[in-house]
């Protein structure tokens, strides 16, 4: 049975990757959205003048872009399951529901990380050139991205499964998603800030925030995992 579960898990994940590579629906829409957000940021900061230290607000800007971008992708991730009733076929097969959760979760996490890894350098290129560089290490940034994306994908997978069955699904996901993600976002911005500014005390503050992120990830992914069966079978 163990190997069947693994076979099912990889089958769902592989299917999502194959379909994504074929249609590029999620990746292009998320990537474009992130780039467009940066154009809007340029406008937003236009009157702030040269004296502005972008690094102070960069963590916030980055996570605003990522949180809305991730909702765009998450919404997509279940649309094709509903398209021709595939979800029903999936549920009819002898697959444990948690396997579906972890496979969809892994796929969403992967796509999120890919787009984040691609857009973050663009952000740095557009806004941080010629200014003070990262104070902390890049590994800090990588760690925050990974930690926060786990929480985003975990809750997001559950909520996207809900919102795909509601009227006005796009706004529905936002209404449920943003308030639930408040603690995670707060910690992600805190940790990113520590990583970007660096200096004395940054490392200890970074680890405090990372502790919050890890705690949130564990609690919320476990909750989503436990509740998923009810949601997907409803």
């Amino acid at each position, binding site marked *: 049975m163990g190997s069947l579960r693994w076979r099912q898990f990889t089958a769902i994940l592989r299917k999502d990757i194959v379909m994504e590579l074929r249609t590029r629906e999620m990746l292009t829409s998320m990537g474009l959205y992130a780039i467009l957000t940066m154009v809007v940021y340029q406008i937003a900061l236009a009157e702030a003048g040269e004296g502005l230290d972008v690094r102070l607000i960069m963590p916030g800007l980055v996570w605003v872009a990522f949180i809305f971008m991730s909702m765009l992708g998450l919404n997509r991730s279940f649309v094709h399951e509903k398209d021709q009733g595939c979800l029903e076929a999936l549920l009819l097969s002898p697959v444990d529901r948690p396997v579906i959760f972890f496979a969809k979760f892994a796929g969403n996490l992967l796509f999120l990380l890919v787009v984040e890894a691609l857009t973050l350098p663009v952000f740095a290129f557009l806004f941080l050139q010629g200014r003070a560089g990262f104070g902390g290490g890049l590994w800090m940034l990588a760690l925050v991205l990974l930690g926060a994306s786990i929480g985003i994908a975990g809750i997001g997978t559950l909520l996207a499964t809900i919102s795909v069955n509601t009227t006005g699904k796009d706004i529905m996901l936002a209404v449920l998603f943003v308030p*639930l993600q408040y*603690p995670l976002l707060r910690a992600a911005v805190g940790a990113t800030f520590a990583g970007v500014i660096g200096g004395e005390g940054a490392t200890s503050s970074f680890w405090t925030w990372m502790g*919050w992120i890890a705690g949130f990830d564990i609690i919320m992914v476990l909750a989503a995992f436990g509740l998923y069966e009810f949601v997907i079978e409803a």
Partner: protein
Amino acid sequence: MKRGYLAEVMLALGAVITTAAFLMTFFWAPPSLYPDGRVDFAQKIFYFHVPVAEASFLVFFFTAFYGVRFLMTKRKEYDVKARIATEVTLFFVLLTMATGILWTRVEWNVWWQWEPRLTTYFIMTLLVIGYFVLRNSVEDEERRATYAAVFGILAFIDAPISFFITRVVQSTHPVVFKSGGLEPPMLITFIVGQIGMLMLGYAFYQLRLKEEELKERLEALKVALGG
């Protein structure tokens, strides 16, 4: 009918006790003083604000509790109970927000301050509103109940995390129960207010439940007659 009777008694008692707490607040509890000796009149709102805030969280617990019960049994009555608990939560949360805003206005001279408790309650308001928006956008009754239960549970887990994370940042909210903070009359006034508010919460919940149960019975009759 016995429970309905109890609800009405609790409503009356709750009303009397909260009124008593209100009077005690202004005529019995000693005024709180600023360090420079001026009277901190705005502090009086504490006797109302905190009981409401605590009641809201207690009622919200029942949203999650009945959510779990519903998922375990799939019985509609638990969905109704969870929904009503959330309605009462919304009422208390909005009251908390309103009193909190009044207080920040008087104390800090701003209408709004992103301070931990207000932020938490702001998030909680959004979660509770989200709960009802979700309910309104699911067609199928059982699916709606399931989604609402799941979201209610998640929201209940999320709210305390929101609360604690905002406290990581230096708090400007008065810490209520620091050692020896309250003189006995203050504490008694506060406790009376808390008891009254919990009774009101219970009464609101039971009365709304009774109403829903009547609706439910009417629905059952309609179905029975239609068949």
